[in-house]
C-alpha cells in the first residue's frame, strides 16, 4: 500500500503547497479530486518520485521512498510505479509492442514480448501490436498508455486525468479497465482527476483542499 503524510511542495517562486494525507491499499482504487491548478499534477509527480517534496514522507509497503537516491528512485519507479499521463505520449519512432518492451528495458527488466501481447489482448488491442503508435486513434492510444503503465506489474498505478479527453462511453471503459487490471495485479490505483463522471463510480475519494501559502523568499 502507499501512504503519504503531510506532504508539502515549494515552487521556485516561493509558493508552498501542503497536501492532505493520502493512503491507498493494494487492490483498491482512490480518487484524488481537485480543481485545475490545485497542484494535482505536482502531487502525482511527488508520488511518482519525479519531484521531491520539500516536507513529508511517502511510504511504499513501509519503505520511505523520499529518502531514495535519484538512481534508486529511477529504478524503483520503473519497476514499481506505472503512470498513465493525461495525454498519451509514446516514442513515436516505435510500434505499439516496441513501446511496451521499451518500458521493460528501461526498468531493467527482461524483454518479454509474450507478456506484452497478453496485456494487449487483455486490453482488446492486440491487433495493433505491430502498428506505429502514430497510427492509433485517441481511444487506442489511451489503452496502449494503460498497457504500458501495467507492463511491469507495478504495485502503484498513477493516472493523471486519464478520462478528461474521452467521451462518456470511453471514459467509463477506461475507468473499468484501470480498476479491473489494478485489482487483478493487486496494485494500488490512484486517479488524479477533476472529472465528475468518476466520482459516482469510485467510492474512495480524497479532496485536495490545498492551502497555497506564499512564503517570503529567504
Amino acid at each position: 500500500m502507499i501512504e503519504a503524510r503531510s506532504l508539502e511542495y515549494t515552487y521556485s517562486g516561493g509558493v508552498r503547497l501542503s497536501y492532505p494525507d493520502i493512503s491507498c491499499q493494494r487492490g483498491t482504487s482512490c480518487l484524488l479530486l481537485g480543481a485545475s491548478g490545485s497542484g494535482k499534477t505536482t502531487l502525482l509527480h511527488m508520488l511518482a518520485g519525479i519531484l521531491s517534496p520539500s516536507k513529508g514522507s511517502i511510504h511504499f509497503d513501509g519503505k520511505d521512498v523520499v529518502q531514495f537516491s535519484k538512481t534508486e528512485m529511477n529504478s524503483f519507479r520503473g519497476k514499481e510505479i506505472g503512470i498513465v499521463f493525461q495525454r498519451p505520449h509514446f516514442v513515436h519512432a516505435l510500434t505499439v509492442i516496441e513501446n511496451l518492451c521499451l518500458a521493460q528495458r528501461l526498468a531493467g527488466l527482461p524483454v518479454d514480448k509474450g507478456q506484452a501481447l497478453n496485456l494487449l489482448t487483455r486490453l482488446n488491442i492486440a491487433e495493433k501490436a505491430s502498428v506505429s503508435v502514430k497510427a492509433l486513434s485517441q481511444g487506442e492510444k489511451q489503452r496502449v498508455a494503460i498497457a504500458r503503465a501495467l507492463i511491469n506489474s507495478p504495485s502503484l498505478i498513477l493516472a493523471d486525468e486519464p478520462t478528461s479527453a474521452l467521451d462518456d462511453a470511453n471514459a467509463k471503459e477506461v475507468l473499468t479497465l484501470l480498476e479491473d487490471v489494478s485489482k487483478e495485479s493487486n496494485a494500488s490505483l490512484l486517479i488524479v482527476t477533476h472529472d465528475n463522471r468518476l466520482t459516482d463510480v469510485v467510492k474512495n475519494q480524497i479532496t485536495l483542499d490545498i492551502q497555497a501559502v506564499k512564503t517570503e523568499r529567504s
Partner: protein
Amino acid sequence: MKGLNNFFYFFFSFTWKNLFSRPLNLLLNLVLFALGVGLISLLLLINTQVTEKMENNFAGIDLVIGAKGSPLQMVLCNMYHIDPPTGNISTENARPFLNPDNPLIGKAVPLSIGDNYKGFRIVGTNDEIIDLYEAEFDMGTMWNGGTEVVIGSRTAEDTGLKLGDRFKSSHGLSNDIGMEHDDAADFVVVGILKKTNSVIDQLILCDTRAVWAVHDHDHSAEEDHKGHDHDEHDHEGHDHEGHDHEGHNHEGHDHEGHDHEGHDHTKKIAEKPFWEEDGQEITALLVQFRNRKNFRALNLGRNINENTDLMAANPAYEVLKLQGNIGIGVDMMRIIAMIIVFVSALSVFFSLVNSLKERKYELALMRSMGASRLLVFGLIMIEGAFIALLGYGVGLLLSHGGMSVFADMLEAEYRYGFEAWRFLKEEAYMLFAVILIGLVAAVVPAIMASTSDISTTLSEE
C-alpha cells in the same frame, strides 16, 4: 548479457528507428556529409593515383631532349604518352647524345612517336627502353629489327594481340578510322612484357628503323633502287675492270671491289647504328646521366636550350610544376569540401536541436520510465555519430563509384588504368574525424536533452 543486449538495442536499433522516423532530416544530413566526405575522398584518390603514376614513370630519367616547344608537353608526350610530340629532331642533331662515347650520358633512349594501333602508341626505340622501365619478358623475345614488335601487358590485354599476330599501324596517336598505313608492311608481335605499372605497359615497342620504314616506305623503296643502281654500277665497274689489261692490278682491284660489294657493303648498312644515318628524324631522347653529381651533366639541359635547336627538360621539375598548378585547384576543392563538412556538422546540430522540440516529451517519458540522464545523453550523441557514419559510408560509395566512372573515362582517353576500389589509409583517418564531427555536433543537443526537467516537460500540455 541483458546490459549488452540493451546497449545494442539503444545504440543501434533504437537510434536507427528514430533517425528513420524523420527521413527528410536524415536525408539532408546524409547528403551534406556524403558530399563533403565524397569530395575529399575523391580528391585523395585522384591525387594519390596521379602522383603514383607520375612517379612510377620517372624511371630514373634525368632529361628529355626533343624539339623546341612546350617543355611540359614534351615530358607528357615522351614520358607519359598523353600529349602529341612537340615536333621531331634530326638524327644529326640527336647524334652527340646517342654516341656511347659521350662522357656525360649513361643511357639515351630514342623515341619515335606518331603511330598507333587501336589507340596504343607505337614507339620506335632501342632495346635500352626495356632496362629503363625495368621490364621483363612474359613471353617471346626482343625484336630483331624488321617489323617485329614487343608489346606491354595492358596493350596485350586490351588489343588481344598474341605472339605471332600481325597488324597494320595507323597514323596519329588516337584510333582514327581511315588512317591505316595500308601499303606498309605488317607489324609482327614477337614479345610480350610483364606488368610493370609503368607507362611501358601500354606501349607497342619496335626498332626505330621500323617506324621509319612505315613512314618513309617511298623513300626506302628509293634506297632499294639506289642500291640496285649501285650494284649495276659495280657490275659496270667490274666490266670495265675486265677491260683492264693490267692483270695484277685487275686482280687486286677486282677482289677488293667484289668484297666490298658482295659482303662488306650490305653488312655496313645493317651494322651502322641508326643514329649515324643522315636525313632521318626521331621524336625525342630519354636521357640518364652517367653521374648525376657531375656539374657538366647538371648544366647539360641549359646548354642544350641555349646553344642548340633542341629543347631539354628536367621531368621531375616539369612534373612538380604541373602538380603545383593542379595543386591550386585541388586546394580550392579541398577548402570547399571542408566547408561542406562544416555545414553538415551545423546541419546535424540544428536538426538534432529541432528534433528535441518534438521529442522532449518522449525523452522525459523515457526518463519517467527509468532511463538515466546518461542514457538520454548517449542516445543523442550516438545519433550524431550515426548520421556522420552513414554520411561517411555514402560519401565513400560516391567517391569510389565516381572514381570508377572517372577511371573508365581516363582509360579511354589516356590508356592509364586507375583503381577505383582501392582504399587509402587517409580514408580511415577520415572515418575517425567524421565521427568526431558528428559527436561534437551532438554534444549541445545531448546536454539539453539530458538536463531538461522531466516534471516541467511532462506537465506541459
